[in-house]
């Protein structure tokens, strides 16, 4: 099972400059743990001290914001794409 994960520019220093990572986790929460295993320090950047996804990070599974799905427990399947995007863009 392969999931494609898009890494935003600010986190690419931790992923050796890679913008696209392959993973195999079964949900978003375990995906973050899997990324932490591969790229130590990344979880600290995506999650706050309480372990929750930081409020200025949006995570999309197949282009849908996980807050419209099941949040951190949103399940992942083979071929799914996950994007981690800073919430910072905007203005009309």
């Amino acid at each position, binding site marked *: 099972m392969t999931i494609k994960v898009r890494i935003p520019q600010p986190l690419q220093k931790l992923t050796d400059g890679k913008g696209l990572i392959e993973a195999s986790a079964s949900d978003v929460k375990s995906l973050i743990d899997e990324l932490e295993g591969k790229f130590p320090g990344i979880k600290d950047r995506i999650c*706050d001290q309480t372990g929750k996804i930081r409020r200025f990070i949006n995570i999309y599974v197949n282009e849908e914001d996980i807050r419209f799905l099941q949040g951190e427990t949103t399940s992942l399947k083979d071929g799914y794409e996950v994007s981690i995007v800073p*919430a910072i863009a905007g203005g009309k």
Partner: protein
Amino acid sequence: MSYIKGLKCRECGREYPKDPLFVCEYCFGSLEVNYDYDKIKERLTKEKIGSRPKNLWRYKELLPIEGEPATGLNSGFTPLVKANNLAEALGVQELYVKDDSVCHPTLSFKDRVVAVALSKAKEFGFKTVACASTGNLANSVAAQAAIARFESYVFIPADLELGKVLGTLIYAPNLVMVDGNYDDVNRLCAEIASKYNWAFVNINIRPYYAEGSKTHGFEIAEQLGWKTPDHIIVPCAGGSLITKIWKGFKEFHKLGLIASPETKIYAAQAEGCSPIVNAIKEKSDTIKPVKPKTIAKSLAIGNPADGYYAMETVRETGGWAESTTDDEIIEGIKLLAKTEGIFTETAGGVTVSVTKKLIEQGIIPKDESIVISITGNGLKTQEVIQHQIGTPIKIKPTLRSFEDEVGEI
């Protein structure tokens, strides 16, 4: 002369150089320009501002450019209209309309932020500018890119009003219509911005771009005779304008140009897209994104980037928030037109109708000064009022036909 120390994370305070950066590498908080206010205070006076041309660059020291502006020499300093007729209709004593529906060159407040963004992009040496937009920003980026001689890429959602599409295409940008809503366009653009070395005004130039919104607030304070109003009602999409108006008032105070601002600031959104208003009214700490469904497309951001700061601005100032239905938005547009002769777009309809509600609810008192922030022009969203404003009386070119159809005068 530089008044900029660098960039600083609004969340964790980490400092960064003054580069085209927009997000804290550590916590993903947004970056904000960090000014040397002591130095600005030595140089910027009311007299100096007053002696300068009537455009947004009269507050140049408080804007994040270091050279000369590349565009915007006729943008800003829009009228602050004393709205006596609307005041009478709403039963209040002192009401003003800050009218950015006549901002130069593209008739919305976006001309302010784009003037700053493109001037900064020029300083950084970018050749191409880009944006994600629901229309007003698209118009302004395309027009001002032409003025400042940039190549431009403008990304819009597929369901945009025709007026906003044509009003962009006329300036000959690369206009890309994305099959999705604004939040989809925005997400796509964030990914494009990671890959291409372009100045995306509302992404990697955002810390600079957003500062342009302060001039809307600076002008209100200057035009009121160097004081701030008791109440101001501001439309919210991404939540940046409302935040920056308040920041502008606080900066003026810090420089000794005005007394400590006691303005209450109110957030206005459409019911079909009110994540900021919902959070304020529910006294929630989190902003839940929504799927927008409203005629107020220029406010249809379901996932507002500055939502938390907008909420904090409202709470800090003791203001409140209200949303309004599509029918009320149209009534708001009509009310402003028939009382003040100002034809605003749907966002303005939201602001006017929210103001009416807040006054009726007794939240805004009738005997204090009120400013309504009007950010865009109705000529761009004519579709929404097309069947709501009557039809012309058709006659033959004869006096008889006139008197038969229109009646005796």
